[in-house]
């Protein structure tokens, strides 16, 4: 071992931190090297000097100060003040809070979804009503496509299902072409298409709730037609009308005028099954 290697290990040798073989090697070098041996003696002298230095005395009152700080820290922590203890949440309170929170989120989502669906429905009906006079077939496609419209076999409607009361014929030569079942966000309703020899088309929708939202931003006029309060909406040269007929609401699209609306109200009121939804 040379001096450089020995001096690198000298502190570890002095402090007895070397493994036996390394310590033996250093020891062997020190026997032959007075310079390195002198350095080791310097370490010894320094160590003795350090062992004699005065031991500082810890001032009194340190623990009291620490204890006061700990007490202050303890009081600052949530739940450790008097008010904090009163407000300390129990598991039940946490669970209740989470439940209420989840309910509010769901309610918010449901409300948002409902509003969103209503806005979308108003937009669909706006297109439907706008197209109906000029292109009743295309208008029909809008509703059928959007709301999964499917033809109904009126003879096969089971008990408990929404069965339309639409008659086979309407005044002024209108004959039933088809009846569809529509799954709309607001309700399940039926739509029956009538057509006369002149090619005029009428659509009759039956639903359980009033659906003014179908008319969107269009002006709705309330008027008595055949003694029945009716909502009337102008569609270019045609009218849409909605009224209560027994437990249901009926909406007709494509009437020429108020007189036709009154006539339909009268006719359908006479046709409806008494006291049946």
């Amino acid at each position, binding site marked *: 071992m040379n001096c450089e290697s020995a001096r690198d290990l000298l502190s*570890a040798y002095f402090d007895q931190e070397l493994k036996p073989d390394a310590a033996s090697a250093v020891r062997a070098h020190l026997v032959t090297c007075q310079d390195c041996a002198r350095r080791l003696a310097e370490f010894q002298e320094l*160590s003795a000097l350090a062992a*004699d230095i005065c031991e500082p005395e810890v001032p009194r009152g340190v623990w009291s100060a620490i204890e006061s700080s700990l007490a202050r820290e303890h009081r600052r922590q949530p739940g450790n003040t008097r008010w904090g203890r009163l407000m300390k949440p129990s598991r039940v309170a946490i669970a209740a809070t989470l439940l209420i929170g989840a309910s509010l989120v769901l309610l918010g989502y449901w409300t948002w979804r409902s509003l969103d669906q209503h806005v979308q429905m108003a937009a669909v009906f706006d297109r439907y009503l706008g197209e109906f006079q000029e292109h009743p077939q295309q208008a029909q496609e809008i509703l059928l496509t959007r709301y999964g419209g499917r033809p109904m076999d009126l003879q096969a409607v089971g008990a408990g299902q929404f069965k339309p009361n639409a008659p086979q014929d309407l005044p002024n030569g209108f004959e039933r072409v088809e009846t569809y079942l529509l799954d709309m966000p607001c309700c399940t309703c039926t739509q029956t298409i009538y057509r006369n020899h002149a090619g005029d088309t009428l659509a009759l929708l039956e639903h359980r709730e009033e659906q003014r939202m179908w008319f969107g931003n269009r002006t709705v006029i309330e008027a008595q037609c055949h003694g029945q309060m009716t909502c009337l909406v102008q569609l270019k040269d045609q009218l849409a009308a909605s009224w209560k007929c027994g437990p249901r609401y009926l909406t007709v699209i494509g009437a020429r005028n108020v007189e036709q609306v009154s006539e339909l109200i009268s006719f359908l009121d006479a046709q409806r099954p008494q006291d049946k939804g």
Partner: protein
Amino acid sequence: MSRANLQHWRRNVPHGVSNLVVPDVGTPVPIADPLADIVAGCRLGNRHAQRLLYDRCHERLYRLIARMVGQQDATDLLQQVFLQVFVKIGQFSGSACFETWAYRLAINECLQFRRRKSRTPCDMPADEPIDPSASHTERTQHQELVELALAQLKPELRAIFVLREIEGLSYREIAAALQIEQGTVGSRLNQARSQLRKRLIELGWNPKT
């Protein structure tokens, strides 16, 4: 336990009884930390356990802190270190001796304190008053010289010298306290001893060797 007794105990304890290592073979022999029960109580915030821990450790930590920053600021720092100990005791994993962990916190606090005060290694003696409670006759010239010379060392070298020569920690414990490799401890101690001797001679110390 006084420092002198501690030194004696550290120096003369049979290696097989050491609570951390068997230095001759370098094989760690971990045994239960004597402070484990007290530390467990401190984890629960037990004030009695905190007081016991303070009683067991404060003298050694104070010695270290006083050597690192001077007695003038040592009391405040000792408080801070113990508050840190009690706040962070949940982070103590128990893989090392508690005291080693506490030394590490203390050294970090000291280094941060010195950075905050932006002191250079040489300015401490100027504003470090002599303890008025101790008469000059009680403090030998050599003691004063060592303290002055220590104060002029870089904090990292001062820390390692104090941990070894005054606190009597093993290299393994020093490495854990300073968060350095165990192999670095010896070379850093070489530097510390050489520089301390040089400073002492500059301050007028007459070595025998």
